[in-house]
Structures are given as structure tokens and as C-alpha cells.
């Protein structure tokens, strides 16, 4: 049985006054429990898509559905279980962290959240000790954590994070990554994570989509996508020297390098059977052909097309 779709965009598009389509025909499906990585180069349309999902921008075409509710017609029901941080978290700097949490909490719950709820959320991100300090005294990293705390306050089922580690130091980035993994694992939250840091998405995401020039160019599980377009492989074949020599002679194989106990090479997925046949015919014993493609390589291959 397939997992429940909690967030769906249908042919979503945004055309600005300049008549340029910033986002066009984007169809996303995020399942319950996903940590969904949303990747794209700068200016690809990630933020515009997220703003449409969170109703900050009205789509020119298509629609957004959250928990089966149309965002355009059932906004309050659609956003009831959703929280998010769009780009950098901004707050009422002249108010304390606690007051900021009260305001956003009241807007979600329809009543002032309990003090314990607020303190629990602040505790989760390590800010309980600064609850009553004005936010203007917070560092960028603290604001980022406060952003996550306010998003978690009302126990959302989907959390949308736009570049959550932007501007953080390596330690801060690690903490946020761990927090995201924990939210999914322990709190069963669905996380929609937009980032330009491929490494970050590769480490935490279970499914992902890539947007380029406003259009979706890939979507699926991280594993599936990385295997769908193999180019870099590591071959374990004996005898190594003969195998290397054969591979170097093949036109469909490039970048053949003896690498430790194996051979690294660049091969199109469609050429792998031919390589296997050639090596076998030359009485080489093939033990394995393992894809070595990184997300970076995959990302570049689909966004440069």
C-alpha cells in the first residue's frame, strides 16, 4: 500500500509581471513520514514554490493540496497542521523569544499557547534559558533555532524548511541536520527541506525532487534517482591489469583509473551490459560493478541538460 500523500502540487506555476515563468508545471508528491529534499540551483524557483505551498504567493496556475484540502479554497484547514520557515527566520526583534512564540502560537491555535508548551519547544532547541531575552540580542544561529522552535510549537505534521542551515557554522549545521532526522524519527513529522547544499540533503533525505529553471527535472527516492543515471562506477574485476587495458580500449568507457583494488570508470547506464559482455569474453572475472555517483554528479547532470 502506498504511503498517504500529505502535500501535493498540481501543475503549479507562477508567472510574474515580467511575464517570466518563475515556476512552471511543478507536480510534487510528499508522502507522510518523508524527509523530502527539494534541490535546485540559485534562482531555480525553490523559494517561489515554497512560498506558494505556504500561501505567501498566489499561484498563476495549478494548485496546492495539503492533507486533501485545497489551499486556495480551504486555507485554514490546509495550513492547520503545517509549519514552516521561509528563508531566514525573522521575528519581532523588539519582543522576547517567549512573546514571539506566544504570537505565532496564538495564530495557529486560535488561543494563547500554554507557557509549558512554549518552554518545551524552546527546550528542544536549547533556548529555554534565553526565553525572556529580546530576539534582537540573538545570533543568527539562535534565530534559526528559534525559528524551528516556533515551527514545532503547535505540533505540526508537516514542516517546511527553506534553507534551514543557511548561515550556520558547521556545528550548527550538524545540530539542525540531527534535529531534522529526530523530528522525522521520533515525532513522525514529514519534513519538506529545501536546500542548495547537496551534501545536507544526501545525508537526511529519503525522497527528493530537483527543480531547474522553474521546472521539475527529477523526483523520487534518493536511491532510485542516483541509480537511474549511473555514470561513475567502481568495477572489481580480475585480473585487474587486463581488465583495465580492455576498458581503456572501449569507446563507451572513459576516465578509466586504477583505484586501489578496483577500477574507477565513467560509463553510461545503457553501456554497462556491453562492458560486462566484453570483460567476460576476455575471460575477466567480474565481482561487482558499484555505482559511485554522488548526488552532486547527479544534480549537475540533470540541471545542466
Amino acid at each position, binding site marked *: 500500500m502506498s504511503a498517504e500523500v500529505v502535500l501535493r502540487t498540481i501543475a503549479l506555476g507562477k508567472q510574474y509581471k515580467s511575464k517570466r515563468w518563475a515556476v512552471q508545471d511543478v507536480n510534487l508528491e510528499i508522502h507522510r513520514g518523508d524527509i523530502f529534499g527539494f534541490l535546485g540551483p540559485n534562482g531555480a524557483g525553490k523559494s517561489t514554490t515554497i*512560498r506558494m505551498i505556504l500561501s505567501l504567493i498566489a499561484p498563476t496556475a495549478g494548485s496546492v493540496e495539503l492533507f486533501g484540502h485545497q489551499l486556495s479554497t480551504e486555507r*485554514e484547514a490546509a495550513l492547520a497542521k*503545517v509549519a514552516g520557515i*521561509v*528563508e531566514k*527566520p525573522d521575528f519581532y526583534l523588539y519582543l522576547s523569544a517567549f512573546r514571539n512564540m506566544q504570537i505565532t502560537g*496564538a495564530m495557529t491555535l486560535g488561543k494563547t499557547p500554554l507557557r509549558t508548551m512554549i518552554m518545551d519547544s524552546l527546550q528542544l532547541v536549547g533556548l529555554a534559558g534565553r526565553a525572556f531575552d529580546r530576539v534582537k540580542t540573538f545570533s543568527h544561529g539562535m534565530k534559526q533555532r528559534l525559528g524551528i522552535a*516556533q515551527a514545532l510549537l503547535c505540533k505540526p505534521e508537516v514542516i517546511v524548511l527553506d534553507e534551514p542551515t543557511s548561515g550556520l557554522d558547521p556545528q550548527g549545521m550538524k545540530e539542525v541536520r540531527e534535529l531534522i532526522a529526530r523530528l522525522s524519527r521520533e515525532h513522525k513529522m514529514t519534513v519538506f527541506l529545501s536546500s542548495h547544499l547537496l551534501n545536507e540533503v544526501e545525508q537526511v533525505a529519503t525522497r527528493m525532487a530537483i527543480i531547474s529553471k522553474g521546472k521539475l527535472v527529477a523526483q523520487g527516492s534518493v536511491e532510485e534517482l542516483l541509480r537511474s543515471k549511473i555514470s561513475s562506477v567502481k568495477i572489481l574485476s580480475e585480473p585487474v591489469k587486463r581488465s583495465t587495458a580492455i576498458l581503456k580500449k572501449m569507446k563507451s568507457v572513459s576516465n578509466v583509473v586504477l583505484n586501489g583494488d578496483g577500477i574507477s570508470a565513467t560509463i553510461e547506464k545503457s553501456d554497462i551490459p556491453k562492458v560486462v559482455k566484453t570483460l567476460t569474453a576476455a575471460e575477466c572475472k567480474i565481482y561487482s560493478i558499484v555505482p559511485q555517483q554522488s548526488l552532486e554528479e547527479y544534480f549537475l547532470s540533470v540541471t545542466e541538460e
Partner: protein
Amino acid sequence: MFNLIYYELFKTYAKWRTYIGFIAVGLIIPLIMWGMHLQAGHNFVQYQLRSLQSDFLITGNLFNGWSISQIIMNSLWVHVPFLISLVAGDQLAGEATAGTFRLILIRPVSRTRVLVSKYSATLLYTASLLMTIAVLSLGLGLMIFGSGDLLAVDRDMLTVLPEVHLWSRFLLAYSLAIWSMWVIASLAFLFSSFVENAIGPIISTMTVVIGLLIISNLPVESFEPVKPYLFTTYQDVWQQAFKEPVNWSRIAESCGVLGAYSAVFFSMTWYIFKRKDILS
């Protein structure tokens, strides 16, 4: 809804700029009183009665707390609109500047409710500023200059309003002033929805108010046909409270026009805000 209004008021009153208006009136009103007290208001009374002194013999305490409070109400032409636009012009533009629209407009609350709560906070701020002016000017005025009848001079007409009726007259005048100033607040609120910094709405509001006030008050024939359609023509509705007898039909007409202007300004704000893409 009350919760939203409460937090909008909380945000409004937690900002430093909100207190500029209160500090300004808190300084200017005692300063005016001090200046008047030094001269016992003689020059001012002589100026007011310049056209009547040849025909009337006027005795008694003409310069009292009521009259000074009435003089201070003239700040409603330009000074108070400026103080109101400082806050009203920041209500939407300030959120855009700070990036906090991204914080509040992703909540399961309709934009209409957010807008209504902000507009309510703006109107309540306007009312509180005028009530502060009323309390301060009447309180200090009566304390320093004492009570008495109010000599209301309207062009060449002299009206003496008995002391016993003055509380109700001033209550009416300040109620009408609040109604009148809500138009200015609504205009600044409208301009606030266009832009992403508060300076623009403040300057735009004052430009419109001063420009239209000039057209409304200049005795130029070519302006006459448009005057009935300008809100500034009715902005001085509070002065009707000091006429004898009170012209209720004129008050009703003025309040109707001013109310219509407020409603139109708010409707335009709502139309813009509902469709506004939050890009900041």
C-alpha cells in the same frame, strides 16, 4: 479574533515609534499651557476678539481650561495626522520590512482576519492618542487656568457656551475628532499596504492631507466643485460641537462622508492585501 487584536495591540504598543505621538503631545501640550500661562492668554484673547472689541464690552475669565483645550484641538489639522500616520503607516509596511509577514501569513488564519486585527489596532491607537490629548489638555487646562464659560468664536459670530454644558460638548467634539482622524489612519493604512517601508506611507499621507486641506480651504472658485468630495472638507467636523445650536444634520453629513472614506480606504487595503505576494 479578540486574541488577534490583543496581540496586534501588544505589538503596536511594544514599539518605540508608538510612543513618539504620546511623548510629542505630552511635551507640546504642557509647553503651550506654560506659554499661555506666562501671558495669561491676553494676546490670544485679544487676537480672537479683534473684530468684536469695538462693539462689545467683554468681562470675566474668558481664558480658561476649556478655551485652551479648544485651541489645542487645532492640532488636529496637521500635527495629529502626522503622529497617526507614524503608526498607521507602519502597520503593514513594518511587517514587510522586518520580514515578519513570512512568520504570520503562513498560519491557518485568513489574511482578512489578520488585516482586520491590524486595522482595529490602528483605530484603537488613534483613539487612544486623541483621548490622551483630551485628558491632558482638559486636565491640565482646568487645573492651571480654571473653569468658566467657553467663548466660541466662529468667523464674525461670538457664542458663549455655558460651563454646565461643556463636558458634553467636549465629549462630542473628541468623539467626532476620533471619527475624523480614523480617515487619516485608514489612508496611512492603505498606503502601508503598497510598500515595504514605513517612510513612504507617512510622506504620502501627509502630502495628500496637506494638499487636500489647501484645496478645501482656499477660496478659489475653480476648486469649489470638487470640495464636497474631499474628506478634508469634513475633517473639521469636531468644530460643530462648539456651534450653538449644534447642527446635527451637518454632523451627520460629515460623519457619513468621513465614514464612507474610511470604508473605501479599508476596502482598497483589503483588496490589495488579499492579493499581495509576499516576496520580502
